[in-house]
């Protein structure tokens, strides 16, 4: 390809990608404006909350995908295969832009990759982006209602929030390890600072410190793992990596197994940190207790959502490409031994001995029989062992996370700490369908799609539930200046509407029908059942059972306990802006079950593009 063509391709690619990337760009512009408003003297009179809200609303509107008709674009027609500057030419192109179709496209459609393969723009991206930006809008409204942050630090906090949001959207749409890391960092670092707002408080600074140190450590480990994995697979572009992995496993690799495994594990450590999975959750309770309730909401919803999105991308992306069958590994090995010989390193020389291949194959078989198995509809793919490994890893982590989160919440006295453990537990629930999706990748693509769809549904429910709870915590904190559960005693007599909403949200968090939490949990358990991960299903159910206690204990204190004498009045009528806000969050929780079908259809659409 000539240089000219390269430039032309690059131009079109950038232009089209920028169009699709507008929401994030708008967010960035908002950040810039917020920062620049500090300069002139009149800048402080403009409400930074307003600017932030306007910016996020515009971003939300722009994130709604639009159908475009193809316009004749002579330049696009000549691009047979837009090549990534970072990509090798042998890497396969996203099928949508193949010039096999006569029609030319002027705009990127859902399913394409943008910025020359770095970022993927598909249904999942659209969903997450909308979820995140909508969440930011709601959070900004909450911050306006509770008055934290105040005017002085408002611009900073909103800058950080918007910046973190850009990072989150990068995370969920990453197609390349670099973007993943960039997103993680871009999301985490502002979070460290956000945890430390309310600078005057001791525990805030402690929380921020713990968060920062732990996060930096985890990020470092993750980067190291990324380096190992990228090196072992010869590319940092996820689809390329997946293909290379498939080829590798098809040819019976063994020496690189260790490196790959270690790399993958370390990347998972970084993701687990973001997800606050056991045993990488230790930051979570401290940070949640130290940060303000609004920031907690942000961390618990947006952060987890983005993290699970990245986990989905990574887990499904790396193992999604089916490799060649390994029925005749020896023959294949013979045929490709010359080429493979070139691929070997000195120390990581691939020994094409049949023994190893057979061992690997034998191991794969053993692992298959070890897990609860269902008839394999697809032909045996060589990457199935990788999938099984990922399933086991994620499944184990999920089980440990939920159990730990639910049990450790029993003894909590601080409501935010309790919600931190609740967040940990919910992260565990969110990881389960990821395992299920990977488990179904080779067997039942429709099932895998449903598993990913269940994540989407759960996140929708989770959005309302957690934001609602933290909103109530924030509003009550403003009145009674306390976040201890015992100080919530008897609030039902002063703010009955609020307590009713709180009750609905608690029941939804438990996952009882007919509330939204049940909807999410149901789909997750359905996906687990489809995938045959019965142990995980059982653990999930058991944990739902465990979680009843601590959620309802708060409710019980609120309703049944006698009011303490020395508490400030805490009457928040439901007909007031804060009350209506909480009600607006609770009503979807209560009635989401009615929209069972539309939500299902939407989530399946969102999950569809992962499985092309």
């Amino acid at each position, binding site marked *: 390809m000539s240089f000219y063509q390269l430039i032309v391709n690059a131009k079109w690619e950038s232009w089209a990608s920028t169009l699709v990337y507008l929401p994030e760009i708008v967010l960035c512009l908002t950040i810039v404006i917020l920062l620049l408003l500090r300069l002139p003297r009149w800048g402080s009179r403009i409400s930074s909350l307003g600017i932030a809200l306007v910016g996020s609303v515009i971003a939300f509107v722009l994130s709604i995908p639009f159908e475009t008709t193809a316009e004749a674009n002579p330049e696009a027609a000549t691009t047979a295969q837009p090549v990534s500057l970072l990509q090798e030419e042998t890497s396969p192109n996203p099928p949508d832009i193949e010039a096999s179709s006569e029609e030319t496209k002027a705009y990127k459609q859902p399913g394409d990759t943008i910025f020359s393969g770095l970022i993927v723009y598909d249904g999942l991206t659209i969903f997450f982006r909308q979820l995140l930006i909508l969440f930011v809008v709601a959070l900004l409204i909450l911050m306006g209602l509770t008055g934290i942050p105040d005017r002085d630090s408002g611009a900073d906090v909103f800058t950080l929030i918007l910046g973190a949001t850009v990072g989150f959207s990068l995370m969920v749409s990453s197609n390349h390890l670099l973007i993943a890391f960039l997103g993680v960092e871009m999301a985490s670092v502002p979070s460290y600072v956000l945890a430390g707002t309310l600078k005057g408080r001791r525990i805030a600074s402690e929380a921020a*410190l*713990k968060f920062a*140190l*732990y996060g930096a*450590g*985890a990020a470092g*480990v993750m980067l190291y793992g990324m380096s190992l994995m990228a090196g072992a697979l010869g590319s940092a572009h996820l689809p390329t990596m997946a293909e290379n992995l498939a080829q590798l496993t098809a040819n019976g690799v063994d020496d690189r*197994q*260790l490196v790959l*495994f*270690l790399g993958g*594990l*370390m990347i*998972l*450590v970084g993701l687990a*940190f973001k997800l606050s999975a056991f*045993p*990488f959750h*230790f*930051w979570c*309770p*401290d940070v949640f207790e130290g940060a303000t309730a609004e920031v907690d909401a942000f961390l618990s919803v947006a952060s987890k959502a983005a993290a699970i999105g990245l986990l989905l991308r990574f887990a499904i992306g790396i193992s999604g490409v089916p490799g060649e069958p390994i029925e005749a590994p020896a023959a294949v090995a013979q045929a490709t031994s010359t080429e493979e010989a070139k691929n070997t390193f000195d120390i990581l020389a691939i020994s094409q001995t049949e023994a190893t291949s057979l061992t690997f194959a034998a*191991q794969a078989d053993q*692992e298959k029989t070890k897990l609860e198995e269902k008839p394999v509809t697809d032909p045996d793919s060589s990457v199935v062992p990788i999938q099984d*490994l990922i399933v*086991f*890893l994620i499944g*184990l*982590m999920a089980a440990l996370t939920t159990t*730990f989160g639910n*049990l*450790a*919440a*029993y*003894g*909590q006295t601080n409501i935010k700490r309790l919600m931190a453990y609740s967040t940990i537990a919910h992260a565990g629930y969110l990881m389960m369908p990821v395992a299920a999706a990977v488990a179904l990748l080779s067997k039942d693509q429709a099932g895998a799609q449903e598993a990913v769809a269940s994540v989407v549904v759960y996140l929708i429910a989770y959005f309302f539930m957690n934001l609602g709870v933290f909103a109530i915590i924030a509003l009550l904190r403003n009145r009674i200046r306390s976040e201890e559960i015992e100080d919530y005693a008897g609030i039902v007599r002063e703010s009955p509407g609020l307590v009713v909403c709180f009750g609905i949200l608690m029941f939804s968090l438990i996952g009882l029908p007919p509330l939204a939490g049940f909807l999410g949990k149901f789909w997750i358990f359905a996906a687990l059942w489809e995938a045959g991960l019965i142990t995980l299903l059982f653990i999930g159910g058991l944990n739902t059972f*465990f979680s009843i*206690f601590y959620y309802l204990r708060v409710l019980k204190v609120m309703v049944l306990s006698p009011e303490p004498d020395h508490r400030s009045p805490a009457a928040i009528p439901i007909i007031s802006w804060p009350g209506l806000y909480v009600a607006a969050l609770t009503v979807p929780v209560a009635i989401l079950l009615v929209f069972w079908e539309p939500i299902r259809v939407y989530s399946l659409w969102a999950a569809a593009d992962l499985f092309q």
Partner: protein
Amino acid sequence: MNLDRMLPLLLGGAWLLPLLAFAIIALGGHYLKKTSSQHRAGFLSTVAILGSFVLAVVAFSMWVSDQGLGEPHHGPEFERAQLEENQTPIQLAALAEEGEAEHAHDGVFSVSGVWYIWAQVGEQKFEIGYYIDALTICLFVMITLVASCIHFFSLGYLQEELETGIKDHLVATSAGEPFERVGRQHRFFQYLSLFCFSMLGLVLAGNLLMVFIFWELVGICSYFLIGFYFERKAAQDAANKAFLVNRIGDLGFLVGIMALWGVLGTLTFGEMSTKLAELAPETQQQASPNKTTIQAASFLQDEEAKATNDEETADWNVGLLILAGLGIFCGCVGKSAQFPLHVWLPDAMEGPTPVSALVHSATMVAAGVYLVARCYPLFTEEVLLVIAYIGVITLLMAAMMALVAVDIKRVLAFSTISQLGYMMLALGVGGWSAGVFHLITHAFFKSLLFLGAGAVIHALHHEQLLIRMGGLRHKMPWTAGMMFVGCLAIAGAGIPGLDWGLSGYFSKDALLAQAYAFAQVNPSHVYLYWLPLAGKALTAFYIFRLWYLTFAGKPREKKLYENAHEAPLVMLIPMMVLTYFAITAGWQIPFTPSSVTTILEQALPAVASFETPWAAALNYPAEYLSHQYHTKIAWTAIATAGTGFLLATIFYVWQGLRPDEVQKQFGPLFRFLQAQLYLNEVYHFLFVRPLHGIARACSWIDRHLIDPFVDRMAKGTVNLARLEDQGDRKLIDRPIDWMSASFYDLAVQLKATQTGMIRQYLVFLVLGTVGFFFIVGYLWQL
């Protein structure tokens, strides 16, 4: 003027007006209860019944203009017959047949229809319908007229019920002081209106089931009205007794209805004659309808039996028909207080006097007679015979009991029973129009007598014993005069030669003439003539005894006499109206050859009487043929009545014979009669005591067998529950508590892992990585 349309409309309206009054008073009673407004209830009721009367009169005039007044059967044949006095009735019958054609009718003219079908089971429909013929019209007019008069009367009689502090001395209170209560005049008129509605409905009814419904309704109204002073034990007992005895009759009535339905397949009056004709196809249908002579009847057979020559089916039908007749008559025995179910009527005098006047003399007790008249075609000869004999027994027995009664209303009650016996007798011997005519005239003079008695009672402030009255004609001249007219009417006073008399004269005469004719034709039943005649003497005696003891002679209680006063106008005017009708009901209607009798005869049933296997052939002389004995009977009757009158005068005016001496002489008989033939005691012994015994036995079973069983079961359940509670607590709660406690401990221990030391966190970061590496690697055998 379309009778088919107008008559149901008019009579239906007349029927429903009292119901409207009832509904308004019942629902708005609270509003009307305010003392000053209680008048309104009475006015409303009276206006309603007057409206009914107006509508009935309009209907009557329409009927008359369409159907005419009927023609008497005193034409040339009658005169011819008179000439040939010595001819036997058979010959007379033959003569009658010659003159048939001139009097041929098309059958009984009636308007019948259905208003509403309230249920349908298969082919059988249960309807609310009407059957209107001359009988209905006449009875409507009579009932509404008498009821209107009595409503007016009641407005005056129950004046005291408008007050709030009424003292009732006949109520037993625990402390012994007189019982005080609030007046309840509106309740009285409410029930009175309901009664009028029920009675009119009964008369209007188009089928037997509807009759039964209203039969029961009048029974209930009677219960309410008798028990108007319900705080008195006597009133409660009387009301209960009336209702229960009626119920016994109604049981027979129901059996009769069912049997009838079984035989005929229909209960509608309009269809009965057709169906009866089907049953006996070979009887003469071309016979003149105004004859109840023998037909050349064949055995009662239906088509199939004829075909198969099966006599059993025929017997079955006959049996059912007889059963039906007896059953229906049983209801009449109960309602019309015939022997043996007459015991309730004397006690029913506990109710206020207007009630006695309306319900227990003119209307309700007449319902039985009406039913017999309406169902006349159904009755076979056996049934008619039974009816006649029961009538005879009743009339004699009641007359004897009236001789010795000391309560003014009791006398009149026994008199009513006796006169009802007369009516039944008349119907039993084939005198259909005589019986119904006597019903109408009796309504007038009996209610007049009762109202007079009521006036007297009211004047004497509720004194009812004859032996404490006397000489009241000076104080209450009008009442005395009108009551004298009533007494004359009931005795059947008249001048035979001029053929002029009061209403009772004509009706009693017709009755006795028919009985005489029957006795002539069927010599074995001659007592059916002599006994009513004797009864006539007794009637005259006791009724004039009543009058003499009340109005004549010297006053026996000075204080009562002092306070007595003439009745107010509101009470006198209804009595005057009734007096007028008591006098003129039997006369010919001016400018026409007709009278009430002829109007009634328009409804004479076209009967095909059956010759049944059991009864001997009975001849039922046609009524118009019995007129020939009219003069002879009249003289005989007057003679008998005069004897009675004379005896009464001797006893009570001229003091020729002393009543108490006679009493002593006929001591046992006297006591026997005064105790109403000890029938009440007999019934009590035969029925009430065994029932009480059964009730006691049931109560014993309930208390000693069933209750302990239930209690034991309850205790057992409680013990079982306790056992379960123990089990629940020990077996279930403990493990669960243990489980939750252990989870909680585990949780607290897990919480302890969060030490708050960042370095430890970072160590766990590394340890976690390494741990996963080794765990998963171990499992994957890397």
